[in-house]
């Protein structure tokens, strides 16, 4: 009977109920997006860092991977040292640089990575072949679009441009072997990849044994911390960064986003709560007489409160479900905007859908729906019955 009454009273003012549900849906969508945002970025970073199974990264002492142009000299010595640790199963050295490719009457400038294609963890081959040969290069779609090159073409590639002299330090002819997508690439960034030795050689005499980054795969996750400590002890000129450390760093940098998410999420929850409270209060006030009659007939306070709380929760839940759909659509749209945030890998999702976020948003809204119903209904059910009926008869 409580459900029948709750349902009947929601239907009695159908338009009003629908508008309230829409309002809650908008607030719920916002809440869901903010919950998704506050947990999503971190989770997305973690997935990205671990996507190729490399748990440890080495960068020049005191820096983060690719944070500066600094490089580590004697890469071969570092690799050799790393290989002596039995926990370390894979070592992938990476050198970052800039290349210039004359195309027609202009020069296209692009990022370049030197890797060992056999163990690399930086890109994914979309078509063609990996740049395994020492005269090979692969590039992303942005680079191909900018140069108009296609697989099989030969490119003149130069490094070390000197703007004063308008000269290049090194230059080579490389064959384009494939189309790739870079895991850590920012949106619209032009990027290419070749063998580590090729990029080192183009860098000139003083770069022949340089690396910007080492990615290390350790046998088991349990050994990561020990391996990290071992590296810092045995190779003093590098910083060893575990996924956990990197995430802490990411957390620090994303703190403002998270704070924003928490504030906006709280505000939208509060708006949803106020909306339901307003509706329930209005609906209780117009039914004061009915409630007094029910009480006179012997309906308990508890059941009156339950009936009204059911109404509040029904609005909140219907709104939350609508909000879930709306939230996912807006998250996708906002993600598209934020992914082109300068300096961030475009693979990072700002809004990562996790069922937990949906449950959190749904749970918070249900609680707010209950809270919205309890006070007005309890107050109405506690009014003195005889007096209320008398006053209602006059009104």
């Amino acid at each position, binding site marked *: *009977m409580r459900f*029948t*009454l709750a349902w*009947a*009273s929601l*239907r*009695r003012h159908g338009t009003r109920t629908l508008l309230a549900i829409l309002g809650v849906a908008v607030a719920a969508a916002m809440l869901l997006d903010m919950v998704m945002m506050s947990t999503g970025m971190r989770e997305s970073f973690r997935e990205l860092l671990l996507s190729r199974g490399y748990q440890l990264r080495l960068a020049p002492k005191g820096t983060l991977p690719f944070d500066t142009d600094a490089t580590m000299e004697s890469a071969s010595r570092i690799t050799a040292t790393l290989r002596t640790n039995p926990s370390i199963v894979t070592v992938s050295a990476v050198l970052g640089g800039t290349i210039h490719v004359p195309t027609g009457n202009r020069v296209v400038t692009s990022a370049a990575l030197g890797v060992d294609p056999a163990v690399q963890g930086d890109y994914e081959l979309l078509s063609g072949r990996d740049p395994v040969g020492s005269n090979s290069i692969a590039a992303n779609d942005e680079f191909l679009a900018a140069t108009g090159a296609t697989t099989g073409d030969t490119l003149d590639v130069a490094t070390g441009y000197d703007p004063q002299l308008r000269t290049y330090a090194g230059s080579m002819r490389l064959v384009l072997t494939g189309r790739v997508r870079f895991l850590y690439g920012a949106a619209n960034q032009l990027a290419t990849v070749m063998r580590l030795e090729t990029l080192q050689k183009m860098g000139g005499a003083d770069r022949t044994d340089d690396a910007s980054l080492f990615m290390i795969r350790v046998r088991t996750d349990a050994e990561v911390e020990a391996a990290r400590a071992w590296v810092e002890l045995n190779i003093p000129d590098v910083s060893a960064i575990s996924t956990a450390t990197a995430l802490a760093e990411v957390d620090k940098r994303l703190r403002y986003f998270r704070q924003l998410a928490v504030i906006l999420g709280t505000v939208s929850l509060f708006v949803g709560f106020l909306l339901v409270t307003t509706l329930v209060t209005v609906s209780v006030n117009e039914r004061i*007489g*009915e409630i007094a*009659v*029910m*009480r*006179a*007939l*012997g*309906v*308990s*306070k508890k*059941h009156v409160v339950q009936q009204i709380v059911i109404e509040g929760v029904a609005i909140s839940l219907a709104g939350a479900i609508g909000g879930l759909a709306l939230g996912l659509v807006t998250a996708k749209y906002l993600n598209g905007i934020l992914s082109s945030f300068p300096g961030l890998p475009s693979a990072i999702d700002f809004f990562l859908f996790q069922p937990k976020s949906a449950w959190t948003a749904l749970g918070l809204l249900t609680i707010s729906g209950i809270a919205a119903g309890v006070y007005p209904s309890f107050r109405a059910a506690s009014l*003195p*019955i*005889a*007096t209320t*009926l*008398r006053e209602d*008869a006059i009104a």
Partner: protein
Amino acid sequence: MTLAREKAVFSWAGYDDEAPPPVVEARDLARDYPFGAERVHALRGVTFAITEGEYIAIAGPSGCGKSTLLNLIGVIDHPTRGEVCIRGQNVGGMRDREATAFRLRNIGFVFQRFYLMPTLSARENVELPMAEAGIARVERAARARELLSYVGLEARERHRPAQLSGGEQQRVAIARALANRPAILLADEPTGELDAKTGAEIIGLFGRLNADGTTVIVVTHDEDLASSAHRKIHMRDGVIVPG
């Protein structure tokens, strides 16, 4: 008060040794309402008894305390002084939870303005007190139909209050009041909103259900309704006066 005098008062109020035990018994019942710094004495101490199966009309000029008295018998208000017992239980001092459960099982209310739940059908309205009493769905549907046919509305069970005339609404309200087989049926001006013909139908219905064994107490200005009762209690200025 000596026993003899008390007995005299009770026997005047319709309570004597041979009669069955009273279903309603009021002793020195009074109700004041605070009104600013003063107090309105709506009921100034009434004593009477009503026997099972009686049909009582409470009559008197407007403002003399009839509704106040009915509300106290119906356990939706608390007396300032004195006591009221129903079926031997002192109901005046009951706390809310106890009073609510008591009303559900023992009191049937009929109001001047019908007060049906506008969103429920006639049958659902009759079922409402039964649902609260925890009666199973099938059983309460069957009893609701039975009650609706008792009041002559078997064909209207699916109609909403707005689709019924005033007299029909009042008959649904009477069926609702009877749902849990109450000890007493209380009605405050049940014909007050109805025209003479429809009012007469309701008066006939009260007579019939009293004949079938229900104790009925009605507050009324309506002379026809008052004269259909077995006994009249006349009130003036918050006290019972001889008729």
